[in-house]
């Protein structure tokens, strides 16, 4: 009985989900690739954009564009209003308490570099420790290595368990009273592992460390509330969230951001400038020098509105069903090994196939219209840990279908046949 009930629940999640309508919103999904229907499973690299986002960008450039925070004219006021309203959408999306805590950046990489350059350079010194993990994207490794070489602190990295699960016990042993910052992903871009961010934040705070979470792979799939998590910084990129490229977000607790020096100098981030000295603007402008990515921010807000319309919870449930189905189907492919089997996973399936290089897999399935990522996924330390030079990654989004997973698995069978 229990089993049937579970099946019914699955069917409910899937049947009430308006997949046809959603797919119609994404114009690119109806394109053909090499004469075949596009099956886009490279969403963890970048997601496609719904018409609502594309239209909002066009509308902004067509109807209400100017520079922001400057002119005393209609268009500038309108553009500033739209840009600041986008900030408000992001604040609500992350559950932050004030718009002063939302900094627009180019992407998550810039957000992490901002924290490293500003907070890190001010607060880290010899004897301190920064704790990251082997699951980090290069963007959450390299900025800390560069700063470590400059400041002389120790950079430690936590290994995941063999199945990809975040190892809380090892995490506890690596945390010391010298740990000043824990900088980890919320969801791994390779293993899909969801990091237990509530526990991680609490444990880090217990030793007096701050916490930075890279949520680039989390926000498209998980509803996030930064106040609930309690983290000090949270960042994500817009283009993986169905928004434009060139826009990212750094959330920081207001008191932490207040105490930090500016990141880059220039216009917009000052309140007054004389030839001898300048005074910094208030938050969030202090961290937004120069003309920001105005229309990209507006486009990002449209993407957030779109996701809210569909419902973050329905998206999450549907994507979990896709992941479960893909995992079951991939497990049936002979010679295929999935890397990353944490219980709590984002919709990412990374795998290796016996005797076939990921690059060969990607090329053959591309000919069949299927787009996946092959390579080291900008996570070389993790590849080294699992002793593979590259893997193939299929990553799912709100608009993927069960039929697409079948097409993908069929395409893999063609690979097996051709390489047999």
């Amino acid at each position, binding site marked *: 009985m229990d089993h049937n009930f579970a099946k019914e629940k699955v069917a409910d999640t899937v049947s009430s989900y308006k997949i046809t309508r959603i797919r119609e919103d994404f114009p690119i999904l109806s394109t053909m690739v090499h004469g075949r229907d596009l099956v886009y499973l490279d969403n963890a690299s970048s997601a496609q954009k719904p018409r609502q986002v594309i239209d909002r960008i066009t509308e902004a450039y067509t109807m209400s564009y100017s520079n922001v925070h400057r002119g005393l004219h209609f268009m500038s006021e309108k553009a500033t209003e739209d840009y600041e309203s986008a900030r408000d959408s992001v604040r609500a999306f992350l559950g932050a308490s004030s718009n002063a805590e939302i900094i627009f950046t180019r992407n998550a990489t810039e957000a992490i570099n901002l924290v490293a350059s500003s907070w890190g350079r001010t607060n880290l010194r010899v004897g301190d420790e920064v704790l990251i993990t082997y699951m980090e994207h290069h963007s959450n490794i390299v900025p800390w290595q560069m700063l470590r070489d400059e400041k002389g602190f120790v950079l430690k990295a936590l290994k995941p368990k063999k199945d990809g699960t975040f190892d809380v016990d090892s995490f506890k042993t690596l945390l010391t009273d010298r740990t000043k910052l824990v900088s980890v992903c919320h969801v791994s871009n390779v293993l899909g592992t969801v990091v237990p961010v509530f526990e991680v934040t609490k444990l880090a705070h217990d030793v007096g460390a701050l916490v930075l979470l890279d949520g680039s792979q989390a926000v498209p799939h998980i509803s996030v509330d930064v106040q609930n998590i309690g983290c000090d910084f949270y960042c994500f990129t817009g283009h993986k969230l169905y928004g434009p490229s060139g826009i990212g977000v750094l959330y920081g607790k207001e008191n932490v951001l207040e105490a930090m020096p500016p990141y880059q100098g220039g216009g917009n981030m000052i309140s007054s400038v004389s030839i001898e000295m300048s005074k910094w603007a208030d938050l969030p402008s202090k961290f937004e020098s120069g003309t920001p990515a105005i229309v990209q921010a507006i486009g990002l807000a449209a993407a957030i509105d779109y996701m809210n319309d569909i419902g973050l919870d329905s998206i999450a449930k549907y994507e979990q069903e896709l992941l479960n189905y893909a995992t079951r189907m991939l497990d049936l492919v002979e010679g295929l090994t999935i890397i990353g089997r944490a219980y709590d996973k984002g919709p990412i399936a990374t795998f290796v196939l016996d005797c*076939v*290089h*990921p*690059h060969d897999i990607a*090329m053959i399935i591309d*000919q069949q219209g299927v787009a996946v990522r*092959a390579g080291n996924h900008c996570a070389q330390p993790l590849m080294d840990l699992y002793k593979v030079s*590259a893997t193939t990654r299929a990553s799912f989004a709100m608009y993927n279908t069960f039929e697409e997973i079948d097409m993908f698995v069929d395409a893999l069978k063609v690979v097996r046949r*051709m390489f047999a």
Partner: protein
Amino acid sequence: MNQEFFENTLRTPIEEEKTKLIEEFAFFDNWTERYEYLIDLGRKHPPLEEVYKRDEFKLSGCQSQVWLVGERVGDRLLFQAMSDAVIVSGIIALLLRVYSNRTPQDIIDTEPDFIHAIGLDSHLSAIRNNGLSAMLKAIKGRAQSELD
């Protein structure tokens, strides 16, 4: 340098070699046959001697890796190369038929237009990041340095 490889590199004139390649591929009706042929070529392609599989000979791509070794023999440049990906090795085999065992001037004068003619040009694009465009650049660079 691998003697067998050296001897197997026939010295068909470049234009003739290009025409032969295009004719070989004209045989195939669909992508499956083309790629099966590339897989076959890739598998038969002689692997690089272990001594050359070092970082200094590696042209890094993010997706696949290519190793390239060049050597001057008489008036010609000989190249050995391989990739960890089979299809890329197959394309390397095609490229080496045209570019290896040639004079530096011939190498510089020869454009990879035959790759376009056989419908594989997208693989030579730098955006593919598979090491092939880096390999071609390195081959041409080596030829240029021989003339400088």
